């Protein structure tokens, strides 16, 4: 059946599509945009329904990967604004530290120069780096919010991601805000070598201060979260939530299979698997995430008077020293 006829026949059944399909002037391209194919169940879904359902397949519950700004829009109830503008800065979300961009401290080059990889990633993702950080209002709660974006170099953590997460934690400390971090990352960024590795310590040390200050940190792990992010801030939340459908681990599946010379079970490193083994507090479907976070924030409001915070001398976050690129 030709695409157009197929859509037409579908239309008569579902009647969900706004655009008039009988209008023959509509191009095939536009038609394609109105419908989305589910990767998992291969069902053609009206894009509008699918977007309204937080990009979760209404048929099989497959959670499509979403970018940082779309995530922020969903969490702050600004999806429509996001659909139009691709961003969503408003009284509900103000970006912080958005001007930080990668340097190339090693002058790294593999099959492609790191500098040119960065340029490609910026064009493709329309982001300055693999995380967007800022202050958000969730329900009635002010939070320091960071959201990683896998479409920028696989969400890898280099100096900029480490610095933005650390500044965000320091911002939470200064303003006594709870911290919510959404992770999605292949791990530390190889092209920045040991600089990337040390971001695990930089962020972890800042979280030690947040912990001592008695402030709440909710870590939300989304598809996929691996390597250096799993082994640093990803798993340091007071509460660790995995989004439905996320795969989470330290080592990659293939590396483990090669090492132990054994096939791993199909559900290995899925959110459900990790929940079973006690590594997560809960697995939450995307449409329920915003509500879950708001409830948890509400229940943890007495954090201002936590006895940990009273017993510890709280040293305010020191202003971050100006950091220069180590090589020029």
């Amino acid at each position, binding site marked *: 059946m030709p695409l157009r006829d197929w859509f037409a026949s579908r239309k008569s059944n579902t009647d969900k599509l706004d655009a008039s399909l009988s209008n023959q002037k509509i191009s095939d391209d536009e038609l394609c945009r109105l419908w989305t194919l589910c990767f998992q169940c291969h069902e053609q879904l009206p894009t509008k329904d699918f977007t309204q359902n937080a990009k979760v397949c209404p048929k099989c519950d497959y959670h499509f990967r979403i970018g940082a700004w779309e995530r922020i829009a969903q969490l702050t109830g600004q999806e429509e604004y996001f659909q139009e503008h691709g961003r969503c800065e408003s009284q509900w979300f103000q970006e912080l530290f958005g001007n930080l961009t990668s340097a190339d401290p090693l002058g790294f080059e*593999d099959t492609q120069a790191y500098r040119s990889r960065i340029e490609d990633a910026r064009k493709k993702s329309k982001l300055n780096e693999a995380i967007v950080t800022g202050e958000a209002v969730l329900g009635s709660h002010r939070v320091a919010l960071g959201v990683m974006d896998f479409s920028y170099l696989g969400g890898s953590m280099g100096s900029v991601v480490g610095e933005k997460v650390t500044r965000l934690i320091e911002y939470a400390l200064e303003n006594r805000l709870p911290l919510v971090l959404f992770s999605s990352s292949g791990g530390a960024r190889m092209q920045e070598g040991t600089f990337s590795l040390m971001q695990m*310590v930089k962020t972890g040390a800042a979280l030690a201060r947040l912990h001592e200050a008695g402030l709440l940190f909710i870590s939300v792990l989304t598809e996929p979260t691996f390597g250096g992010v799993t*082994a640093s801030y990803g798993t340091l939340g007071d509460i660790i939530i995995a989004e439905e459908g996320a795969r989470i681990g*330290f080592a990659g599946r293939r590396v483990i299979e090669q090492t132990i010379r054994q096939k791993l079970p199909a559900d290995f490193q899925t959110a459900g698997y990790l929940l079973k083994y006690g*590594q997560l507090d809960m697995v939450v479907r995307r449409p329920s995430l915003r509500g879950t976070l708001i409830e948890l924030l509400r229940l943890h409001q007495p954090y201002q008077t936590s006895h940990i915070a009273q017993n510890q001398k709280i040293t305010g976050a020191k202003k971050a020293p100006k950091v220069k690129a180590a090589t020029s």
Partner: protein
Amino acid sequence: MSIQPLEFEKPLFAMKDKINELEQMSQSMNVSLEGEIERLKTQADEVQIKLYRTLTPAQRLQIARHPQRPSCLDLIQMLSPDVWFELHGDRCGTDDRAIIGGIMEIEGRPWMVLGTQKGKNMKENLVHNFGMANPEGYRKALRLFQHAEKFNMPILTLIDTPGAYPGMDGEQHGIGQAIAMNIREMARMHVPIISVVMGEASSGGALGIGVANKIYLLEHALYTVISPEGCASILWRSAEYASRAAEALKITSHDLLEFGIIDGVIEEPTGGAHYDPNLCAERVKETVLLGLESVTSLGGSAEWIQQRYDKYRGIGAFCE
């Protein structure tokens, strides 16, 4: 014990064998070959100096992984020949011997020492899992760090690991979380922490015992985000590019010192630590004691924690 030559050392070893042969010949046959022997010796010295001065990162990596390189337990034995109590177990059912820990004494002061242990042969490697720890090892380490904090002992960590063990149990038991928790807790320890990388320090598996006030590398040791082999197979899609990756990653002690990521390089005996383990241990001891001195001189635990924070806070290269 005779040294097993590395591939790139073989020409030098061949020259030395030749010299020995000539020396024996001149004795047994009572002919004077002194001129020839002297000439060869000078030549060998020149070759040796040039060889070890122009080591590539990949050659350093081979030295760092030499099977005769002093291990963590060897070093403890040399640093504290009379006092060593190994402390075992995570108190949750396991003693992961990829990480060993215990109390030693240097110049009258007790230290808590933790290290990843590589074996020298297959039997030892099976006991210590090639220095690749599981979550239980990191949790044992945390227990011992807390012990040190309670009894006000400085902590020395000795790192030589290809990384945490990539296994199924490790993922079930939270290897990522175990490392992350150690990073966070080491950052806020109220005692000085000194870290010495003895061989390879690879990825998060090294950081799990690696957060310190002072980090020193043995001259040929390296500290890397991923093993050069792993990096090559991901970025070049073939492990054969490992030496290219070793170069590109800038992981040698001198690179890292220049970047300000580490605090010092401990010079090794010519050819590497395994040529003279005692000399190497002597230098480690000297450096560690100086490091401790410079940390304690900052004041009390608040200053030590602050110095540790500032040290890592400043690592990163970016534009704004």
